[in-house]
């Protein structure tokens, strides 16, 4: 169970995330939707502490022996939390000059003393885990390639493999398919869903398109200007609610709204 309580983040006078609260039971797949700038990324980055919250709490009871407020973690415990709350990014964030296998092994660095990881000393169990993760994502034949030789879709699968070997309880995905073509987007979303169902890992994913969230998620959270404006099952969302999430009221982004809602997805 992950509990987000009154989480707020302000950058100067701009409030990016405004007093947001919700609970995610273990094993759920949640899609967070909203326009660019709605605070989706900031929210996810506060959960794994890549960004520090201005106020509020993030409570988690299945990463450590007892329930902890993630926002108070420091040092080694904070790094452990980040490992257990893995993240995949829109731009994949692999290390370009390293081999795919090495990139995946990076998911194990929080489990070993710093010095041994600096010397690239990983255990056989680590390597076996990495190979299995690559195999699950159908990337095992690229293991010795350099990460920057791969296509975007392949890189994202490697990034998911890296997240998997962190042995996470929660997997955060920040616009995981926004840089990918339709076919690769489908592969990546299918992988996330499979990991969610087979491993029981909670998945919280920021998504730009409503249709993707409807296709893959148990639950949708809609954000607008830093505030949650919808929280429920995909079927519960009405057309009007969807328009409220994406719409700005102006004429200028009418096309963008239609696109995000999937109303004009094919042809004109």
């Amino acid at each position, binding site marked *: 169970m992950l509990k987000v309580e009154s989480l707020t983040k302000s950058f100067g006078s701009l409030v990016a995330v405004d007093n947001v609260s919700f609970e995610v039971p273990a094993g759920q797949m949640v899609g967070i939707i909203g326009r660019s700038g709605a605070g989706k990324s900031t929210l996810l980055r506060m959960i794994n502490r890549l960004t520090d919250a201005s106020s509020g709490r993030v409570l988690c009871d299945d990463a450590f022996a007892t329930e902890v407020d993630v926002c108070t973690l420091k040092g080694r415990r904070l790094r452990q939390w980040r490992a257990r709350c893995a993240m995949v990014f829109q731009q994949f964030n692999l290390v370009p000059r390293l081999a795919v*296998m090495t990139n995946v092994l990076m998911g194990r660095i929080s489990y070993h003393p710093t010095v041994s990881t600096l010397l690239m000393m990983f255990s056989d*169990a680590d*390597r*076996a885990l990495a*190979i299995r993760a*690559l*195999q699950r994502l159908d990337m095992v*034949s690229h*293991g*010795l390639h350099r990460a920057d030789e791969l296509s975007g879709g392949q890189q994202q699968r490697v990034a998911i493999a890296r997240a998997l070997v962190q042995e996470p309880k929660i997997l955060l995905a920040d616009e995981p398919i926004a840089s990918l073509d339709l076919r690769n987007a489908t592969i990546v979303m299918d992988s996330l869903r499979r990991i969610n169902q087979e491993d029981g890992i909670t998945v919280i994913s920021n998504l730009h398109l409503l249709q993707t969230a409807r296709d893959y998620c148990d639950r949708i959270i809609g954000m607008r200007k830093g505030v949650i404006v919808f929280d429920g099952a995909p079927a519960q969302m009405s057309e009007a609610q969807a328009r409220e999430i994406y719409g700005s009221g102006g004429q200028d982004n009418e096309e963008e709204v239609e696109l995000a809602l999937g109303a004009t997805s094919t042809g004109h």
Partner: protein
Amino acid sequence: MANAAPRGLAARFASEYAAHRRRKRVYATLFGAVFVVCVVAAAITAKFDVIKLVDGLPRTSEFLLKLVPPIGMSSFANDVREWYWDIGKWMGSLLNTLLMAYLATVLGTFIGGFLSFFAARNLAGHYLIYWTTRRLLEIARTVPDIVWALMFVIAFGIGPLAGILAITVHTIGAQGKLFAEVNENISPLPIDGIRAAGGSWWQEIRFAVLPQVMPNYLSYTFWRMELNVRSATIVGFVGAGGIGHDLFTSVQLLYFADAGAILLIIVATIMLIDVLSESFRHSAIGKASFAH
């Protein structure tokens, strides 16, 4: 789950990966052995003798003590004033040296920066251009600046001009190489972007390369300024004037106290430049990376 034997593709990859790691380990061992042998060989040929080192170390203080005249507690101000009896002339020389270094840094950075695009494999276009520029830069920087200075003193006579030219040539070589390496590490994506927009080679350099490399260029340039103050001092030894000339004369005439006074001025100047360039560099790079 932890140790289930991998099958099929995964098993093949596992053995491939194991072979890859064995190969890497062999290379690492070989490389390490060669490295150690080289270090030991270098130490032997250079007669790096630890016993001699420990033995001689105290004697260095004898020389250092000669650099400072006796300074008494009661007559402190007077003694220091006497020590720095020629401060006016020395400060004038120092200014000369600083201006030499500044001019050489500016000239060398512009010329070296220009050449760096031809010395970067990803930008040079033709291999011949790349190869020629690289060799030219190597000549410019491997010939010690004191040798360039001697040459220019013979050509243009004693004075700062020879010093400025000497340091400029060396700076061209150094900046050209360092900048070229920065150029080679940039992302090629913006270049494709500019090229796809119909840009020429010069436009690619201006709009796709320069914005990416500018912070690094700045950083290297400040560092080069520091090094050039030191170089400008040294070339003073062979007739380029400035504070180096004063230092050299006083050592030659065995006026060790004067040499000490001048050395202290130089050290203080370098420290001041270091502090100033540090803070300026940080603010400049900060701005550069947050621009746009």
